[in-house]
């Protein structure tokens, strides 16, 4: 594939691919490296991709690269950053759909306090004692909010 086509693909899909990598790695720098390396490699050797399936191909390549990076991390590293433990079998689209559902439920099915704890923990990566101090509750109460919220989510999607 010539450079012009690759450039067009890069311009058209770069932002989306970066988003996907960032969602898996939680790290903007690492995500940028993954996407850059992928395109650098494609510049050297581009396999035949059926027209119209370029994005799917690029997306799956990015996800595989992210999986490889995650596989090299130790269990402690994974747990500390809340990386996925298993190699996910969902496609990019399936995962997007699932995350959309989860997003919707977090904002409609959880209490305000639970949402606040989620925001501080998962959105702002705050430590439990920081969350406790910010909300004026004990650390144990933070754990309880988290466990209760996760149980509610689990039960909702199980049913």
């Amino acid at each position, binding site marked *: 594939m010539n450079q012009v086509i690759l450039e067009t693909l890069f311009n058209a899909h770069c932002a989306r691919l970066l*988003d996907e990598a*960032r*969602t*898996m790695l*939680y790290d903007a720098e690492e995500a940028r490296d993954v996407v850059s390396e992928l395109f650098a490699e494609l510049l050297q050797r581009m396999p035949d991709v059926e027209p119209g399936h370029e994005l799917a191909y690029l997306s799956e390549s990015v996800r595989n690269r992210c999986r490889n990076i995650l596989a090299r991390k*130790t*269990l*402690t590293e994974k*747990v*500390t950053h*809340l*990386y*996925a*433990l*298993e190699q996910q079998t969902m496609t990019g689209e399936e995962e997007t759909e*699932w*995350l959309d559902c*989860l*997003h919707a439920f*977090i904002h409609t099915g959880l209490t305000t306090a639970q949402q606040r704890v*989620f*925001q501080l923990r*998962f*959105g702002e990566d705050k*430590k*439990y*004692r920081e969350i406790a101090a910010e909300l004026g509750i004990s650390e144990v109460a933070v*754990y309880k909010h*988290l*466990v209760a919220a*996760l149980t509610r*989510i*689990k039960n909702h999607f199980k049913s």
Partner: protein
Amino acid sequence: METNEKLMMLLRMMDEPEAMTEAQLQELLADEEVREMYGLMSDCKKVYKRMNSERMKNKKYELLFTFRKIAAIFLAVVFFGGLAFAAYHFLSSKTEKQSVEVTAPSITGRAGGESSPIRFSNVRLDSILTVVAAHYNCEVCFRDTTAQALRLSTVWDREDSLAVFLQTLNEFDGLRLTDERDTIFVESLIVED
């Protein structure tokens, strides 16, 4: 150990990873329910990371929009300023033109000085030629009436010959004056629309 207790331990461990060994972690995560909860937490984090990234994008768009708005206002100011400037100059040049037209006609020369030049300022051509013809003892004949009403500003030195003065007048665009048989013939070369 109860699943909930394990879950609490896992949450604690996530804040202080150094407090637990890799083996202890594996043991914790061997519990299917704990593992499931962990997976859920991981997905929740993804949800929030996506939200953050969307928010960043929106902020960028907002910034871009604000910048475009400022640029549009700036361009509008420049455009209307330019328009006002052009209008001012257009009108002022028009006013200047008009001021030439409304200048009171005058014929000036040093009083009593027969040899001093006469300055015609915004005077009709037929009036100029009446004065000049009287001096040179000749007639004036306008071949068309268009030229009669032309207003000119020029200087006539009475000591110059008629031919020299006519040459001066011939330098005006659209005008041709000739001297034939003691008559000044005037032709307008301006083609009227």
